[in-house]
């Protein structure tokens, strides 16, 4: 069959796929779907299956509402208040030693504040606007916005979101890995940082790298480092599935059968965890492929979902289990989150987890954190779980940054932006209709970058019929 040309091979492939996939029986019935639909609705109605009764919900709402009214919170008219020190006073903090499951928020209603955002469309040059051959990404990194096209490698930076300059070599900073990682997913089976995953193999690992750019853990560390710094001490190769950077250094989980064979003598691809305080000197975590998920047990290497750097160490999820490490090497179980946990997002010194079932059709590369109507989001810190109340209609893609928590929903709710500076006060503001109406079926969530004065939203527009894809960038500025 080596002699087959592409046309003949494609024809043979169609036949084989038809033979195997066409013969697949589909036993799913409408009745089964109806039952699941009914169960899903009941699940929501009764507090996500945690035994919360309607009476308890009503009581919580009454108590929460009374407290809010009594404290005067509902009368606030603050226009985007200045960033206060985060306060967790009104939320439950789970004991880290008892592997808790999230419980209902003790404060079911967030405090509304007024919010006025003015949106303007930022002109993009052809490098970034043409979606057929380019894959732009935007993020707030350190002290500026960074706009990068991962297809061409073009990078622009801006401190205000309006005026853009080409990247200078001295601009390299640890945070660029964030942007790069998120962008990598666009190119197929690679991915990751935070809520996505790097899946591109090192050439020695096998065939996955054919015709793919050589992006490996080593390349990522190159980005992490200042350009002139040596990278020769990076010991691992393979695909990085998780990487977290914070004040305590870098934690990465790398998957490579070759590495594992060399290290453990087995062919079990359970992943290898590494820690570095500086991106140059790395220590391997002790391989461990299973976890009892009990307090005191160790995070299984290979079990990472996402890992984020937090103020006093690192937080990682492995499935629905949430783990904390002060030194990047020894981990303790903090508790469990929703089985549908999608990812972690650093904020307020901790890690935000999306609660609830995975959102529909969510591209893996987006930093999606959709509340899905549960009324709260979970913030994990080394002290345990904090449940932050959010508006009931909050949705869309979330970004966090110096201005706080920003959710921009271009697909639902007629388009809204939600902003919170402190995790308890929320303002919402409509977005221009143009921001979402060309978005095919609404299933390309926007990317949100949160700066110190403004917000950028990068949107992909797709007319859905002739394959024309364009990107647009919107600047959100607070009005007095």
């Amino acid at each position, binding site marked *: *069959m*080596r002699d087959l040309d*592409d046309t003949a*091979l*494609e024809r*043979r*492939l*169609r*036949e*084989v*796929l038809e*033979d*195997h*996939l066409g013969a*697949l029986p*589909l*036993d*799913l019935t*409408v009745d089964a*779907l*109806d039952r*699941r*639909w009914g169960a899903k609705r009941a699940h929501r109605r009764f507090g996500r299956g945690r035994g919360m009764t309607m009476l308890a919900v009503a009581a919580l709402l009454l108590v929460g509402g009374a407290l809010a009214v009594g404290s005067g919170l509902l009368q606030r008219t603050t226009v985007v208040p200045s960033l206060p020190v985060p306060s967790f006073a009104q939320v439950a903090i789970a004991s880290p030693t008892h592997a808790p499951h999230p419980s209902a928020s003790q404060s079911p209603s967030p405090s509304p504040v007024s919010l006025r955002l003015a949106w303007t469309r930022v002109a993009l040059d052809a490098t970034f606007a043409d*979606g*057929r051959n*380019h894959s732009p990404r935007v993020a707030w990194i350190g002290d500026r916005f960074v706009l990068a096209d991962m*297809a061409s490698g073009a990078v622009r930076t801006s401190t205000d979101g309006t005026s853009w300059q080409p990247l200078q070599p001295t601009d390299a900073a640890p945070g660029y890995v964030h942007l790069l990682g998120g962008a990598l997913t666009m190119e*197929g*089976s690679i991915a990751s940082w935070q809520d996505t995953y790097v*899946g591109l193999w090192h050439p020695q690992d096998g065939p*996955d790298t*054919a*015709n*793919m750019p050589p992006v490996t853990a080593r390349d990522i560390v190159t980005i992490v480092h200042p350009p002139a710094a040596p990278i020769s001490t990076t010991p691992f190769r393979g695909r990085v599935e998780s990487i977290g950077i914070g004040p305590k250094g870098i934690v990465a989980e790398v998957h490579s059968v070759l590495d594992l064979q060399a290290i453990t003598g087995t*062919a*079990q*691809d*359970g992943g290898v965890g590494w820690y570095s305080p500086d991106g140059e000197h790395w220590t391997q975590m002790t391989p461990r492929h299973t976890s009892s998920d009990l307090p005191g047990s160790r995070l299984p290497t*290979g*079990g990472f979902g996402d890992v984020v750097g937090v103020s006093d160490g690192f937080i990682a999820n492995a499935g629905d289990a949430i783990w904390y490490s002060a030194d990047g090497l020894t981990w303790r179980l903090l508790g469990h989150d929703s089985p549908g946990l999608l990812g972690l997002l650093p904020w307020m010194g901790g890690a935000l987890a999306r609660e609830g079932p*995975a*959102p*529909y*059709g969510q*591209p*893996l590369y987006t930093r999606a954190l959709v509340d899905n109507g549960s009324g709260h989001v979970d913030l994990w810190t080394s002290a345990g779980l904090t449940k932050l109340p959010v508006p009931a209609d909050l949705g869309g893609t979330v970004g966090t940054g110096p201005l706080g928590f920003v959710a921009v929903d271009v*697909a*639902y709710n007629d388009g809204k932006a939600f902003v919170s500076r402190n995790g308890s006060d929320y303002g919402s503001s409509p977005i221009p209709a143009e921001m979402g*109406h060309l*978005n*095919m*079926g*609404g*299933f*390309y969530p926007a990317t949100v970058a949160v700066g110190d004065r403004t917000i950028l939203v990068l949107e992909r527009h*797709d007319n*859905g*019929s*002739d*394959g024309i894809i364009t990107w647009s960038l919107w600047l959100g500025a607070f009005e007095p």
Partner: protein
Amino acid sequence: MTVQALRRGRPEVLADLLDRFGRDMQAVAYLIVRDRAAAEDIVADSLLAALDHGRSLRDDDALRPWLLRIATNRALRYRRRAARIVELQVVEGAVAEHRGPTGDDSLALWEAVRDLPPRMRAAIGLRYYLDLPVETVALVLDVSPNTVKTQLKSALAHLRTALADEPMPVAEVRHA
């Protein structure tokens, strides 16, 4: 009519969606997760998610790729979770199955497809089984059309190489 009912969140539309798109969604999900039960579960989950969020579907013509995209993303996510711990085992009898040109080409080609990376398998299924144009495959997978072309070209090269290899034991990935 289906799209309107979907936008209104009417559960009656599930029967029509299952009938019209269920098998397509199942095929792509199965190619990614390689598990029939899981693929079926993903179809059900995806249809319910579609019903949940039908109001965000603005373009009537986008229904099919929209549903395929939901199923594809859920399958990729499922596989990612399931692949956290994998075990490589030599499968007895696999030597006879994994034949080159002199063996059963059909089975060898199928096995080679199953050995491709998940997103590449998805691209193969969308393009060569569902016969979607490259541009639509790109929409479903959220990659550029050029990326789809590159993936397909790479996949064909892999398949050709795999089929030409000498018979050898096949390392089958089994989820723990």
